[in-house]
């Protein structure tokens, strides 16, 4: 039994890219190559100059070709909140960001907590999704944190995993029953770790910024204490868990220690937590409001350390679209969440890779392994492999937000920031799913 990826598919692609820097740490690749894709399969991968490529090949000089990215944590708001995002716009946003696989969260309206609702979503994904997407089911009915859903049946239909994301499973007994039930569901449970008694469900971090603004802040202890608890439960039950959107230094340490003693735990971090701190909230711009909130610089540094040493397995955007009207409210009233699929790679590349803080090979590894905790394949670059590729132009400056978004929403935390480069081409499962207008050519 395994999770199912659904999408509309497309015509397998034929193209060549010459003189491109190919980076795929899993295949041991980092060099200049000529690459040919025929009928959606990588047929040639040769050191640059050795191959004879067609005249309409893409000149890849100044560009990086990587395995396309995968994201285990996106919100496509379908069903029920299609004014924020749809499967079609959400997957288009992912394609524009260089992704070939994403996993959608079930905190929709209604919640995806039954086999019937899950079937409906997978059917819509099969018609609308621009790239392959998986769907998570809820762990508890209505995300209420009390009654388990029919996880075994949902797994048979194709749920890639289970989560109550957006809400924590506060009751330790419920969490324990959920992970014991894994023997039937055979799927990883992803956990939004938050003790509401400590977080207060507050709008931002408890720190100097909240003190100055007179807003109640939430302590990062709300996250690390729950991670410690849930790793202990997973350890005792032999269960597999994935902890979502780490934000606090103590959380990173809790995961590191759990992994060291053999707990089956994986972890993710978001671009905004890797790049921003609570100071970004000082102007009360609601595009800096998300849950968990942005925390301190030492938390950010701990997340970067965790990314580098593998404590954090993958980058996940927690792409959380909201309409302008919903975000144009006082900070406390605005909903949590920011978009991220179209800026994840370049934002981290500029701030951490270009400045020598994170090696490119590490970033590529963490951007591509997001679906691994849920048993889905990791895209790789090798002859004979299906083409799951992203081409990134390192010298194509733009200002974040200019030219709009493929996403239906614009609540991105980096609006106004100057970026050095951009994704210009994405292939998912052999099909060209995104091409930037500046690259020329046609699909």
């Amino acid at each position: 039994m395994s999770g199912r990826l659904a999408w509309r598919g497309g015509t397998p692609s034929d193209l060549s890219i010459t003189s491109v820097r190919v980076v795929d740490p899993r295949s041991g690749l980092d060099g200049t190559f000529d690459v040919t894709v025929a009928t959606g399969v990588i047929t040639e991968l040769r050191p640059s100059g050795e191959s004879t490529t067609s005249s309409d090949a893409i000149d890849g000089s100044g560009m990086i070709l990587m395995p396309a990215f995968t994201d285990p944590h996106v919100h496509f708001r379908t069903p029920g909140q299609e004014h924020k995002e749809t499967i079609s716009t959400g997957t288009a946003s992912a394609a524009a960001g260089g992704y070939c696989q994403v996993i959608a969260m079930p905190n929709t309206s209604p919640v995806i907590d039954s086999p019937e609702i899950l079937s409906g979503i997978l059917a819509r994904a099969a018609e609308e999704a621009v790239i392959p997407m998986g769907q998570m089911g809820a762990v508890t009915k209505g995300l209420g944190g009390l009654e388990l859903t029919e996880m075994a049946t949902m797994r048979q239909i194709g749920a890639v995993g289970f989560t109550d994301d957006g809400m924590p499973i506060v009751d330790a007994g419920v969490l324990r029953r959920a992970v014991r039930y894994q023997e039937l569901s055979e799927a990883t449970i992803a956990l939004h770790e938050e003790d509401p008694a400590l977080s207060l469900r507050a709008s931002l971090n408890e720190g100097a910024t909240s003190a100055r603004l007179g807003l109640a802040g939430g302590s990062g202890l709300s996250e690390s204490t729950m991670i410690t608890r849930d790793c202990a439960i997973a350890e005792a039950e032999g269960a597999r868990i994935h902890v979502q959107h780490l934000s606090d230094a103590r959380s990173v340490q809790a995961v590191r220690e759990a992994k060291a003693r053999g707990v089956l735990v994986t972890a993710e971090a978001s671009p905004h937590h890797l790049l921003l701190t609570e100071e970004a909230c000082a102007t009360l711009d609601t595009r800096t409001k998300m849950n968990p909130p942005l925390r301190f610089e030492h938390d950010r540094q701990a997340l970067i350390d965790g990314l580098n040493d593998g404590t954090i397995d993958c980058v996940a955007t927690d792409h959380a679209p909201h309409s302008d009207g919903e975000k144009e409210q006082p900070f406390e009233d605005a909903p949590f969440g920011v978009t991220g699929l179209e800026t994840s790679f370049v934002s981290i590349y500029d701030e951490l890779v270009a400045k020598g803080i994170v090696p490119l090979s590490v970033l590529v590894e963490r951007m591509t392994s997001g679906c691994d905790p849920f048993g889905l394949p990791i895209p790789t670059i090798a002859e004979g492999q299906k083409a799951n590729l992203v081409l990134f132009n390192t010298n194509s400056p733009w200002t974040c937000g200019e030219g709009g978004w493929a996403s239906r929403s614009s609540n991105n935390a980096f609006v106004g920031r100057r970026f050095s480069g951009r994704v210009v081409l994405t292939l998912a499962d052999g099909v060209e799913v995104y091409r930037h207008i500046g690259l020329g050519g046609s699909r």
Partner: protein
Amino acid sequence: MNDLLTIEQLGRSGIERILDRADEFGGIAAREVQKVPALRGKLVINLFYEASTRTTSSFELAAKRLSADVISVRSSGSSVEKGESFKDTVATLDAYDPAAIVLRHPRAGAAALMTRWTNAAVVNAGDGAHAHPTQALLDAQTLRSHFGSLDGRVIWIVGDVAHSRVARSTATALNLLGARVVLCAPPTLMPPMIGMALGCETTHSLDGLEEADAVYALRMQHERMRGGDIPSLAEYARCYRIGLERMRPGQVLMHPGPVNRGVEVTGAAVDSPASLITRQVSAGVAVRMAVLYELVAGSELATPRAAEVAA
């Protein structure tokens, strides 16, 4: 200056400019006709999402003494209660073409947000526990009148610092004017890092209060007990109530009002000559006249000073 949203935006020179003008306006109250024509024909709207008799009446009086037309809109009984959004309410009021809108709102940042939706000058009359710049100005005015200068003076602000916009704005203003501010609160009502954030010392004890030139008691709200921040008002009072027995001669007492006698401050202290509380109230009108004048008339007049006041 288009709007008054925070005290930080003014800086020391901006604060002093407004206080100087408030000094001039302060003389008007003593005249037979307590009015100047500075804002004749201009509309000032008070938009209050929280009840505050004291602040609304102070702004109303300030606007009237400048000869402006004034309307006050309260959330109670208005379209706000029928579910109209903040943005739509502002758009509706903006259609009257006001020169200034004075906003009291329970959410931090509300006044700054409102500037997106109106061309009127926005005066923040309290946004959540964030800022209350005109309170800070009237507090500074009261202390400056009493001491002459605030440079080197020590002011203790005692009470529920966590939920107090007054503490934040007043501490900032007094710091900018050269005073040293000490925040004193129970640990559960003192947000972590607030000392660093505001540039103040912090303490959980009244020990050392004798160093203060002025003691500023904050209102302790009864709902704080329900939230579990303090076990009881009685215990709070035992630890933090300001009474004459804790004050040394020469110290002055301030309070933003309304006072809970016997909780954060004793009745005897409120009624004593050390209390500047009623002087804060009268300073409030003069300071708000100066703010409205600067925001509305100041942008149109090259030398908007003594000539108008003398009229």
